[in-house]
C-alpha cells in the first residue's frame, strides 16, 4: 500500500545553527530545502545521490544574499560530469563577508545501483579564513542514498559529517552533523510534493516541505516552508533549451528576506 511518508517530528528545543549553511540552490531552497529525494545538479549540495539523473555534463553558478540588509553572500560554482552509470561532481562554495569567509570544496561520486537505487559519497574540504587571524581547515564526509519506490514516489536519505570533522575547538564555527530523510511525490505531470525530516543532534530537528507546480513544461513555481526555525520559501525556475535559470527567496519572520539566483548550463 502506498503510504505518504510525511511524518511530523516532535521537537522541543530552539537552537541557532552555527556555521555556514550549505546552499542547496534556488530550486531546492524554494521547495523548503527538502531536496533529499530530488535530483539535479544542485543535488551536489543536497543529497548527492540525486545527481545520477544527469545525462550530460552540466555547470551551474549560484549566488545568495542572506537577509538583504547584511553583507553575507554565498557564492557557489558546480560542475557535474556523467560517466557511464556514474556521475562525478565538483563544487566550490564561498560564504561570508569581507574579512570572514568559510569556503568549501566538494568532490562527489554518485552511482546508480540497479534501476531503483542510487548512492553517493562526498568529500569536503572546509576552510575558515579570518582577516589578520589566519585560517583553519577541516575535512568532512557525506553520504546519501535514494530509492525510487515507483514512478511517482522517491525516498531519500542523507547523512552529513558523521565523523564529526570540525575546526579547532576555540573557533565558534562548526560543521553541522545532519541526518535527513524525506520523500518526493510526483502527483501528476504538473505537481511534485516533498517532505523531509532533518535531525541535528546539536540543534534539534526540523520538518520541511515544499511543492513544485509546472503550469508550463519549461516553467515551474515552487513554494515551501520549514518549521524550526520557521521560514517560508518561494521561487520559480525557467528552462530555455540548455540554459536553466532558477530564483528563490527565503523569508524569516525576524530576519527578513534572502534572495538567490542560479544559472545552469548543460554542455
Amino acid at each position: 500500500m502506498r503510504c505518504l511518508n510525511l511524518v511530523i517530528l516532535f521537537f522541543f528545543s530552539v537552537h541557532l545553527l552555527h556555521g555556514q549553511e550549505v546552499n542547496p540552490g534556488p530550486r531546492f531552497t524554494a521547495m523548503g530545502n527538502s531536496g533529499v529525494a530530488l535530483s539535479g545538479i544542485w543535488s551536489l549540495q543536497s543529497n548527492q545521490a540525486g545527481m545520477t539523473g544527469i545525462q550530460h555534463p552540466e555547470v551551474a553558478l549560484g549566488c545568495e544574499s542572506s537577509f538583504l540588509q547584511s553583507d553575507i553572500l554565498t557564492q557557489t560554482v558546480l560542475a557535474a560530469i556523467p560517466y557511464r552509470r556514474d556521475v562525478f561532481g565538483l563544487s566550490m562554495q564561498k560564504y561570508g563577508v569581507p574579512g570572514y569567509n568559510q569556503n568549501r570544496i566538494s568532490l562527489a561520486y554518485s552511482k546508480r545501483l540497479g534501476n531503483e537505487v542510487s548512492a553517493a559519497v562526498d568529500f569536503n574540504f572546509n576552510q575558515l579564513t579570518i582577516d589578520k587571524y589566519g585560517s583553519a581547515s577541516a575535512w568532512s564526509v557525506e553520504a546519501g542514498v535514494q530509492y525510487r519506490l515507483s514512478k511517482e514516489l522517491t525516498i531519500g536519505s542523507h547523512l552529513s559529517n558523521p565523523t564529526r570533522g570540525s575546526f579547532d575547538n576555540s573557533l565558534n564555527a562548526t560543521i553541522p552533523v545532519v541526518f535527513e530523510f524525506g520523500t518526493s511525490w510526483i502527483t501528476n505531470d504538473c505537481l511534485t510534493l516533498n517532505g523531509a525530516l532533518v535531525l541535528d543532534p546539536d540543534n534539534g530537528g526540523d520538518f520541511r516541505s515544499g511543492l513544485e507546480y509546472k503550469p508550463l513544461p519549461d516553467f515551474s513555481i515552487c513554494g515551501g516552508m520549514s518549521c524550526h526555525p520557521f521560514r517560508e520559501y518561494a521561487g520559480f525556475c525557467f528552462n530555455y533549451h540548455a540554459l536553466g535559470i532558477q530564483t528563490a527567496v527565503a523569508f524569516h519572520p525576524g530576519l527578513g528576506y534572502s534572495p538567490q539566483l542560479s544559472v545552469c548550463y548543460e554542455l
Partner: protein
Amino acid sequence: MSCKLQLFVCIFFCFYEGYALAQTDSTIESIAPEAETLMEQEAEDNKEVFDYAEVQENLNYYRQHPLDLNTLTKDQLSDFYFLTPFQINEFFRYRERNGRFADPLELQTLKSFDTVTVHRLLPYIIVNDPQILDIHSYKGSVTNEVVMTYGKLLQKQQGYIIPDTANQNRYEGSPDHMFMRYRIHWADRFMISLNMEKDPGEPFSFTGHNIGFDFYSACISYKGTASIRKLVIGDYSLQFGQGLALWAGMNFNKGAGIASVARQGVGLKPYTSANECLFFRGAAAAFALGKITFTPFFSIKKEDASLSVRDTLDSTRGVTSLNQTGLHRTKTEIANHDDIFETLYGGNAEYSSGNLRAGANVSYLLFSRDFLPGRYLYDKFYFKGRTIADASFYGSYNWQNLYFFSEIARSQPGGCAFIAGILASLTKQVSVILTYRQYEKEYYSFFNQGLSEGTNGTAEKGFYSGIEVEPVSGVHLTVLTDVFQFPWLRYNADAPSSGFELFSQLRYSPYKNFELSFRYKVKGSEENDDQDETVHFLQQVYKQSFRIETVYRINFLQLRNRAELSLYSKDEKGERGFLIAQDVICKPSFSKFRCSFRLALFNTDSYNSRIYSYENDLLYSYSIPGYQDKGIRFYINIGYRPERSLDLSARYAITSYYNTESIGSGLDAIEGHNRSEVKVQLRYAF
C-alpha cells in the same frame, strides 16, 4: 472568556399539523469537524466564539426542506460552507450549459465535486419533477419551531453571595440562564424569528427599565425571486466581500480549512443568532436589476458603553469602551446598558455574472456620544470622535482552476486595508491558498472581520498560505501557515511585533467507521516580559500542541478518544498541559432515547498551558471549556423524543479539581473544588 451556556426549554402548544422535527436524530445536523476546530481556535485566542447556531439552523432547515438543484440560487448554495468557490461556480456553469439535473447524484459528474462532498450535500438537495406542482408555492407549508432552554450552575458563585446591602459589585439577578427561540417559516418566502435570552446573573423583572428578558432579537424576513430579492425588518446581518469593511455574523477565520478563507459574502441575512452585539437593527433590502443587486440598509440601535468624564475641565461624558459581552449582571454593567445610540446607514451594489463577482459598499456610522481618545500608546489609533465612514471595493474571479479574490477598504477618518488571495486547485488531490493582507494602523471599522491574527483587524500585515492534500482516498493532510507583523504596539506588546502560526493535521480514514487523526500546532508571538519594570521588552512566546484522536463507529455507538499535549514557553519558563478524554455517543434509530457522555482527565501547569476541547452539548448550544489546572471532567447529555414533533433533552456536567479549595476568581469564584451545571431543553415543532 464568556462562554455562553444556552439552554432551551420547549413548551407544548398543540398537536402539530404539517412539518415536524426530523424523524431520527441521525438526520439532525451534527456539528462539522471544521466548525469544532474553528470554535476551539477562537476560544484559545480569546475571541468571541460565534454562535454556530445560525449555520446549524440553516442546515437543519435545508434537511427538512431540501433545495431543488434546478432552482436553487447562488446564495443558497453559499450557505453550505464546505463547498469551495470552484464547486459553486462549476455547478452554475454546468446547469446553464446542460440544463436540468435529473438526479442529485448527477453532481458526481462535475469535476470539482468529489464523492465525499456529494454525499455531504445529499441530505440537503432534491430534484423535483417539473410536471408536478412546485411544492414550494406560497400556498405551501407553514412550519413553527419553539426551543426553550434552562440552565444553572449548581454551586453558588461569589457574585450571588454578596448581599445587596453591601456596597459592592455583585450579580443583581438570579443564576438561572434562560433562552427561548421561536421561528416561523412560511414556505421558502417568509420567516419570522424571535430570540429571548437572560444570562446568569442578569435580573429578570418587569420593573423600571426591565421588560423581562435581558436580550430580545426579532426580525421578519422575506425572500423572493422578482426585483425584491430580500427584505428584512428587524435584526439583520450583512456580509460583503472579504469582511474588511462590513461583515457581521459567523465567519470561518484561520484554521478551518482553506476554501473558507476565500469568503463568499451572502449579503443581507436575517439575524437569528444569540450573540448580543455585532448585528444591525432596522431595515434592509436587496433589489436585483439584471445582474446587479443593490442592498440599501439602515440601522439604529443601542449599545452598551463605559462612559467617563473627558477631563477636569470638560464634564461631558464620552465613551471609553464598548461593552461587547452582552452581560448585564452587575450595577456597573447595568448602568452601561444601552448607554449610547449607534446609527448606521449605507448601501452596497454588487455585480455577479458567471465567474466574476464585484461590488462596492459604503456605510456611515454615527454615535450619540463622542469616543474619547485612548489613554495608552497602543490604542492611539483606535476610533475616537463620533462618526466614521467606511467604503470598500471587492471582487472575485474564477479562471479555470484558479480563484482570485480581493478587497480594498478605506475608513474616513483613518486609513486603508487590503487583502488579496489566490485559491488554486492544482490537481484533484491538491489545493493551495495564498493570501496577503495589509491593514494600516489608521484603518478602523466596527464591523470588520477580515482574515486576521489580532482581534481588531487593524494594524496588521500578514501572509497566509495553506495546502490540502489527499494523496490516496482516506488520507487527508492539511497544512496552514500564517506569518504576521504588527506595525504598531498592542495590548501587552510595547513595540511592533511579529510572529507565525502553523497548523497541520493528518486524518486517516481507511473505512467509513474509523478515523484516526494527528494534529500539530505551533504559534510563535511576542509579548511584554513579566518583569516588574516601567519599561518592558518583548519576549518570544511559543505555544505548541499535539493531538491524537480516534473516532470509530459500531452500529449506533460512536466512540472518540483524544489525547492532547500543550506546551507553553516564554523566556526560560516552560509549562505543560495534558488532556485525555473518552467520548461515547449513542443514537440508536430503534429507540426514542439518545445519549452522549465524556470522561476527561486533565493536568495543566496553569492558565497558559490550558487546553480547549469542544464538547457535545444540547442542540444549538456550544460548549468549549478551557481545561486548566488538574482534575476530572464528566458530562452526560440525554435526549428523548416521544414523538416526531417533540424533543426533550437534558445535560449534566461536572468538573472536579484536585488540590484546590476554590475555583475561579472575583465574582465568579466558587468555594470548594467542584463546578457542576445542569441544563434542560424542550424543542417543539408544529
